[in-house]
């Protein structure tokens, strides 16, 4: 996906995205990080067509995002939001089956293909034995996996995740990120996600986009982007740099402001 010169303001005062250009590489894990209000979620929402930029072009496969029909686009890109209301009495299976909507026309359905896609989505997220349970009966980590399964059932090339680990404890955070990594490595999904935790971003990304006040400050491989100086200027936090190969790899420790 290519973004060129994207600008967007929610309130006509501050620029939430200020002439942003970047390219999302196919088959890679790209993570957008930055302080609160830097525009990282807005950037994701432009990619997922939830916001229309006021200037610039966003293209997927050389075609403007806005020129895709809704269902056509939903076959290319799926998104998982950070917070989701839990509908009453809905079973995991039924919710995940909604992921097939983009592939179905009013009177045309391929039941076998749908079934296979739903099975695959449930298997990849390890939800097979929960499939008949209602969402209300699941833990926070399981629920987040259900929303990912819904996105997987869409069978898209690109999967976007908006702060998928917020509200989860550390075990479920890692479980989720491992799942994302597996989806990328085993199934070749292009991943674009927004994360808060810099260390997690370093560990699980091929490419990091660092943002501040609606602008991209730096982007590239984790070790190129995450430097003491950049973290200090962007977050205003002093960090120590550690590199424990091969166990922890590169990581940072905040030591003061």
């Amino acid at each position, binding site marked *: 996906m290519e973004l060129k010169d994207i600008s967007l303001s929610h309130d006509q005062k501050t620029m939430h995205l200020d002439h942003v250009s970047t390219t999302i590489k196919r088959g890679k894990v790209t993570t957008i990080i930055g302080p609160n209000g830097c525009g990282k979620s807005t950037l994701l929402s432009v990619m*997922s067509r*939830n916001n229309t930029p006021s200037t610039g072009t966003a293209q997927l496969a050389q075609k403007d995002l806005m020129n895709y*029909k*809704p*269902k*056509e*686009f*939903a*076959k290319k890109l*799926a*998104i998982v*939001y950070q917070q*989701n*209301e839990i*509908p*009453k*009495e*809905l079973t995991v299976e039924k919710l995940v089956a*909604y*992921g097939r*909507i*983009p592939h179905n026309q009013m009177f045309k359905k391929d039941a076998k293909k749908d079934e296979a896609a739903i099975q695959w989505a449930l298997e990849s997220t390890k939800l097979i034995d929960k499939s008949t349970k209602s969402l209300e009966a699941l833990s926070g980590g399981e629920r987040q996996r259900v929303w990912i399964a*819904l*996105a997987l059932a*869409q069978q898209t090339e690109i999967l976007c995740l908006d702060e998928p680990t917020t509200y989860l404890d550390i075990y479920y955070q890692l479980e989720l990120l491992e799942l994302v990594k597996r989806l990328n490595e085993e199934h070749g999904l292009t991943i674009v996600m927004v994360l808060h935790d810099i260390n997690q971003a370093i560990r699980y990304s091929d490419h990091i986009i660092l943002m501040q006040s609606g602008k991209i400050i730096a982007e590239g491989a984790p070790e190129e982007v995450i430097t003491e100086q950049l973290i200090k200027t962007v977050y205003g936090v002093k960090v120590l740099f550690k590199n424990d190969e091969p166990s922890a790899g590169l990581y940072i420790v905040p030591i003061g402001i």
Partner: protein
Amino acid sequence: MRKKMISFIAVIALLFVMIVYAATTGSVKMEFLEFCKALFDSSNEKIAVIKDLRFPRIIVALFAGAALSVSGVLLQAVMRNPLADAGVIGISAGAGLASTVIITFFPMLFFWSPLFAFLGGAFACFLVFSLSWKSGLNPLKLILVGIAINAMFTGLREIGGFMGVPTGSSVTSNITMKTWADVDLLVTYGSFGLILALLLYKWCNLLALQDKTVKSLGFELGKARIVIAAVAVLLAAVSTAVVGVIAFVGLLVPHIARKLVGTDHKVLIPFTALVGALLILVADTLGRTLVAPQEIPASTLMAIIGGPFLIFLLRKE
């Protein structure tokens, strides 16, 4: 699953009993067996009276109840709001005003009055939506705007009443003196709306998810909202045109139905229709037998039963 089956069977049985009871009770009385025999014997004088006066009334009550209740379910789905009801948010009032105006000034358009009621209801619905919409649906604001719209349309219609315009049944709801012409009207438009509602169950289920989720599935949310709201307005408008405004039905029946059969609209919509039909028939039959030869309008009884019942439901949650 069993609970659903039992609920369906129980409501259908009750409905049947109630229809027979309603047909055989009142100033002209009949025994059940006599009634059954007379149905196939046109020489019976009593059955002629019942067929002419009571059958239309029963059919009108059944269809009005079903239409209003299903309209409530659809509105609640489309507005994501458990308090949405055509009688509460002004749709019935808008429909009533439009049909009153038409019948008063253009009486020859009687059979088309539901269409004008539909336009009035749709206008009210549009006002409620557009005035409460601010980058999304706000449940509280929606209800408040709806109450304001309701008050406005009800007031306008009352002005008509003061100016000596005969407002007929669309002001004080009434199911008395219904003729086969009313039945034709209600059954024609009502069945159309009810069938459409049944076909829309999948969309209604999808609307239970958040807008952003539904949109990301490539589902055309705006289109679905308009279609569902239009069917809801049609149902409310038709019954308002024939029996007047009956509040609470669209609010109460879906709540009861959800408790019994759950939130899946595939089951909820038909069940709501049955319960709604039963409830209005009960209210109307009680209304005409309790203090005979006087009559209590079904809407009055509905308000008396509905108020406390709603409070009971809310307390239980």
